[in-house]
């Protein structure tokens, strides 16, 4: 029972990070019908930028919380600029090309960013500095620490904020209009290029925060961290129904739970043959099962016409 509760806690925390990243995939897909496979790399760059900035600032004896705040802002700004640039140079010229072309470009961008990160930050793991005491609390036999609590609550707040932007603001309406009918949106006076750029920037800002959360949670960052994380968040977006914002959030949390419970019990299920190091398998099993049995995802309605 303690294992169960512990895995639920871990799953929800990890899942809330997946959800933030999945939102980036789903927003871009909703508007352009494009899977931005470079998005995972944006998460990684966000983590790396934040980490470098923290290291420098702490070295200058800036107070930890101030350093953190500045680093978050810097990582967000950096990732927004990166997201804008990726759309501008890698996707926009291919807006009317066959579907396969931007997909290949996306993979290319992803490889370029990984290599760039490797050149800048090297191949080694960077440890995340300790900023707060990170006390551990017990909860019905399981434990949860301060960082996990902060990650979960912050992620929920950000998701609520995003929903408010999309559903209650002029920009959000314009985003939904462009997603639904680009011609009609233009007739209303919407500059669709601007809305598309802003969508990439918004998704990248979420990615920066997610990157910081992951590296704070595991205490590590690495130039390769965006790859698997990106694939998992993409899985989460597909699970929830790609193109659907609520689906991305639901898919993220569910995937976190499935993975965590799977890792907790895989030893028991397989008689000790597989250990919890096989937890990544679950995400991809989920992806395959969803694609085979329900390609439109849990909350998705339309996928076929824009795959």
């Amino acid at each position: 029972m303690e294992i169960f509760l512990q895995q639920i806690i871990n799953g929800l925390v990890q899942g809330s990070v997946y959800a933030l990243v999945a939102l980036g995939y789903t927003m871009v897909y909703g508007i352009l019908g494009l899977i931005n496979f470079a998005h995972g790399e944006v998460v990684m760059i966000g983590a790396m930028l934040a980490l470098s900035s923290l290291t420098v600032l702490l070295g200058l004896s800036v107070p930890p919380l101030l350093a953190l705040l500045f680093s978050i802002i810097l990582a967000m700004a950096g990732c927004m600029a990166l997201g804008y640039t990726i759309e501008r140079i890698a996707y926009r010229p291919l807006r009317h090309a066959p579907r396969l072309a931007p997909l290949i470009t996306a993979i290319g961008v992803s490889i370029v960013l990984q290599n760039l990160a490797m050149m800048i930050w090297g191949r080694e793991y960077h440890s995340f500095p300790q900023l707060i005491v990170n006390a551990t609390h017990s909860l019905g036999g399981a434990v949860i620490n301060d960082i996990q609590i902060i990650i979960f609550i912050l992620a929920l707040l950000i998701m609520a904020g995003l929903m408010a932007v999309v559903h209650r603001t002029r920009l959000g309406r314009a985003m939904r209009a462009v997603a639904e009918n680009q011609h009609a949106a233009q007739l209303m006076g919407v500059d669709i290029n601007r809305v598309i750029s802003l969508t990439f920037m918004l998704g990248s800002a979420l990615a920066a925060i997610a990157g910081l959360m992951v590296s704070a949670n595991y205490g590590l960052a690495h130039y390769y961290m965006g790859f698997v994380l990106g694939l998992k968040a993409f899985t989460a977006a597909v699970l929830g129904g790609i193109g659907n914002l609520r689906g991305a959030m639901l898919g993220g949390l569910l995937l976190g739970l499935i993975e965590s419970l799977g890792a907790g019990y895989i030893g028991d299920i397989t008689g000790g043959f597989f250990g919890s190091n096989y937890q990544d398998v679950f995400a991809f099993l989920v992806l395959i099962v969803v694609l085979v049995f329900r390609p439109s995802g849990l909350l998705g309605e339309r996928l076929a016409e824009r795959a």
Partner: protein
Amino acid sequence: MTDTLLEVCGLEISYGGIRAVKGIDLHIASGELVALIGSNGAGKTTTLKALAGLLHPARGKIQYANRSLINVVAHQRAAMGIALVPEGRGVFARMTVLENLLMGAYIRDDKSGIAIDLARMYELFPRLAERKDQLAGTLSGGEQQMVAMARALMGRPRLLMLDEPSMGLAPLMVQKIFEVIRDIAALGMSILLVEQNAKLALQVAQRGYVMESGEITLSGAATELLGSAAVQRAYLGA
């Protein structure tokens, strides 16, 4: 002669290699209601799309309010007061009626003016007031046409272009839509009305153009066209 709002000269539009509009001239004066009629495939929709900036003409001049529109993209034309109610309505199906109307006011930032115009639209189309929180995709065809028209009017256009507003609607609904067209024309808005229902269109319009396979074959006062033997034979089933 009143001043000209829109003047089109030698407009040519192609899809790939196929010329759909083959060098047409037309003009609309301020406050005028002009009908563009012609059978299916004549090039009417193509013409309106080019005027709205959704298609790029191969050749020709478009002059609006004494400005050339050649390098002006669609969203800028909307901001200049050119509105198109597209064929098939093009409502945002997954948005509510109210959100659709607010999208129509996207180019405006006068909050109080927008509120006044919203109330006016609900007065013009009481049905929309009842359904303002309903998703536009769940409405009937006639109601969606009302949404599309109200949405265009929310932008306070100077030139309103309507592409087959009567298409697929029940007779009672057609009547209602044409009443509204007459009303807004009476308020002095310039309107370019595309219709396959030539009789209806020419009854409300002051002038008309007849289009056939990408060319304008006839033009003149609406009453003249209504009386012309050629128009009667081809479009009025006489």
